[in-house]
């Protein structure tokens, strides 16, 4: 009984104490918010990105911070990969921690929900993992920037590569296997549309839609194998792709049916080094090995490995690093940390990043970055397989034409 009293008393005090938690920030530091899905499906990618961001912030702070006078202070929150939690945590970062920019999210659904919040509070919003085209195509916000090749660009790049392969190998029919969620759906739709244009001789035999987070793929494996298509085009979410690959291997799936289009970021190449079937035709967003000739990338890889026990940076770490540096260059162009000036400066800005000198396209704030397609193969330089015979498909060849974007925006206004 007494324990109960004490407990309740402490509890009540705790609650009262919450009011006393204040967070007044001096005008000097640049508060950077990182709201990613640290719990949920995106945990691994989010943690990787946090590491990349940290390397960038450390480097910048060594020089004194943004404009050499505003040290960057990072505030981290977990969006739990849920849109309403994402909205709440971003509000928290903006109102309590007074962040000026937020890097968000793993999930496109969360990023899209956070967009209007950042716009209302005039906070810069950079998407560095999720890549749904909807983040930039419609509901344009001058505060939201995308440093990842978006779903349209990736799909177009993939179709370009697939069309070439199909011609070479005489493929005719294919099956699509896409995770039933926004990214999976939009990517699959794009690919099918593109392939109709660039490889009209190809026909879709069947569309399969496993649910996101599917753990039992056996039925899908057997049904595909029974259909005997010339190849499978896959748009599975990363974890599901692993599950599928593991479950399909014992059926001899990969010996019989070419598996094309899965996204194998450096994360997958490293974690599945022992088990990934070699010869997969995979697509990637920001593999470090594609740009080791660029000094900024080589430097980043060196610093990252030094900080994290020789680990190689994944695509998410690279893009987190790029996001911070893009922001830095925006601040430098604006000459101030005032958000409205920075957002105006960043519009159409060309920035020097690990992936080269790239421009933010003015019409949608999409970074004109490349997509990468290659064949999974071992490489003596690294303890994991990489994408060999790498084709870098530049933004100019894969971005959506501006006219279509204008049309889409007019359509949604109605």
């Amino acid at each position, binding site marked *: 009984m007494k324990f109960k009293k004490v407990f309740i008393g402490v509890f009540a005090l705790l609650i009262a104490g919450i009011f006393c938690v204040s967070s007044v920030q001096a005008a000097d530091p640049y508060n950077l918010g990182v709201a990613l899905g640290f719990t949920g499906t995106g945990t691994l990618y989010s943690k990787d990105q946090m590491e990349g961001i940290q390397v960038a912030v450390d480097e910048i702070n060594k020089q004194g911070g943004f404009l050499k006078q505003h040290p960057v202070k990072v505030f981290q929150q977990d969006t739990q990969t*849920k849109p309403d939690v994402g909205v709440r945590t971003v509000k928290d970062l903006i109102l309590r921690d007074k962040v000026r920019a937020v890097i968000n999210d793993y999930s496109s659904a969360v990023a899209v929900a956070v967009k209007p919040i950042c716009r209302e509070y005039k906070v810069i919003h950079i998407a560095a993992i999720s890549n749904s085209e909807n983040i930039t195509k419609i509901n344009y916000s001058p505060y939201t920037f995308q440093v990842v090749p978006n779903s349209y660009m990736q799909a177009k790049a993939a179709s370009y590569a697939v069309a070439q392969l199909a011609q070479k190998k005489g493929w005719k029919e294919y099956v699509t296997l896409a995770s039933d969620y926004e990214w999976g759906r939009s990517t699959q739709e794009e690919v099918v549309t593109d392939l109709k244009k660039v490889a009209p001789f190809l026909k879709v035999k069947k569309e399969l839609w496993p649910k996101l987070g599917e753990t039992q793929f056996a039925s899908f494996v057997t049904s595909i194998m029974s259909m005997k298509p010339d190849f499978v085009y896959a748009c599975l979410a990363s974890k599901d792709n692993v599950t599928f690959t593991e479950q399909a291997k014992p059926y001899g799936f990969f010996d019989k049916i070419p598996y094309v289009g899965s996204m194998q970021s450096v994360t997958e190449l490293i974690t599945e080094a022992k088990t990934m079937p070699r010869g997969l035709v995979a697509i990637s967003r920001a593999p470090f090995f594609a740009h080791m000739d660029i000094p900024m990338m080589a430097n980043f890889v060196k610093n990252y490995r030094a900080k994290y026990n020789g680990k190689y940076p994944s695509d998410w770490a690279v893009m987190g690093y790029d996001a911070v540096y893009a922001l830095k260059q925006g601040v430098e162009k604006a000459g101030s940390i005032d958000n409205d000036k920075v957002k105006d400066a960043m519009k159409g800005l060309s920035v020097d990043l690990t992936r080269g000198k790239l421009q933010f396209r003015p019409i949608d704030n999409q970074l004109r970055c490349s997509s990468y397609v290659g064949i999974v193969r071992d490489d003596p330089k690294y303890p994991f397989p990489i994408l060999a015979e790498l084709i870098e498909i530049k933004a100019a060849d894969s971005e959506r034409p501006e006219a279509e974007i204008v049309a889409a925006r007019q359509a949604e206004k109605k």
Partner: protein
Amino acid sequence: MDKKNSFLKRFRLPAGLFFVALILPLVVSEFWVHVFTEIIILGLFAAAFNLIFGYMGQLSFGQAAYYGIGAYTTGLLMVKLQWPIFVCLPASMITAGLGALILGYFCVKLRGIYFAILTMAFGQFVFFIIFQWYSFTGGDNGLQGINPPMWLFKANAYYYFSLAVVTIGMVLLYFITESPFGYTLKAIRDNTERTEFIGINVQRYMLINFVISGMFCGLAGALWGPFNRSVAPDLCSWQHSGHPVFMAVMGGPHHFLGPMIGSVIFTFLNAFVTGFTEYWPLVSGLVMIIVVLLMPGGLFGIIKSKGYFETKSVVLEGNNPGDTGDKNNE
């Protein structure tokens, strides 16, 4: 006791809380105004849930379905048809009530754990429909661009608006619980068999109650959409259905304001804890265990046992904290 005095005494707690709620935005920062808006909306949700739980003695683990239906109704009406918010709120109550009518018709044939599981199954059913109907609801992407009218755009404005709606809702709910209908519900809770014997059509009462609860859950959901500027299928998940259960248990299911107080504590805790750790499930799980094991009857149950709220109805009903009547329900 003087009639006027006892009236004031009886309502001193809700009046006090309302007064505090009124002046809150004047003393706390904008972030906390957002948190309090969330608290009162979820509090209404929990209070509506409690109609079925505390007052009728059945555990519904799927009320989030009606909350979600309400949220999506308002969302869809505002985004696709640009209806004003004043029309959307009652519309949400109607759609949520309809949903509760259809699904509740089946639920009220069951009791105890079967009732709980069926409500959960129906909750998942609604979740998957919203999730899969990509073309209409936006699927897992949710619906964005739910913007409240200009005069409600600012945090304080929306807070007061929500406060007004929630207060009206709570007052209506209170009248329902204190009406003969409400007392019949308590009789059903305390001894279903006997209530049948005196000629009450228990199933019909349960269904009516289920629909009322659904309507107010829908109203809460309707407030949520414009507040958040978006809705997502997650609002219907079984995990979300668990929140009002926890709030009601924590605040005390046998006091009308219990669920609202539970919402205050739970939401506060959530906002506070997620500020410095990613292990919120761990913390919330521990808190849940402590509350359930050590605080039966919730916060109000403990306060009541000290005799702070001596009203005639408490003594007459012989309400024991944690007692939901029929212990033999299987």
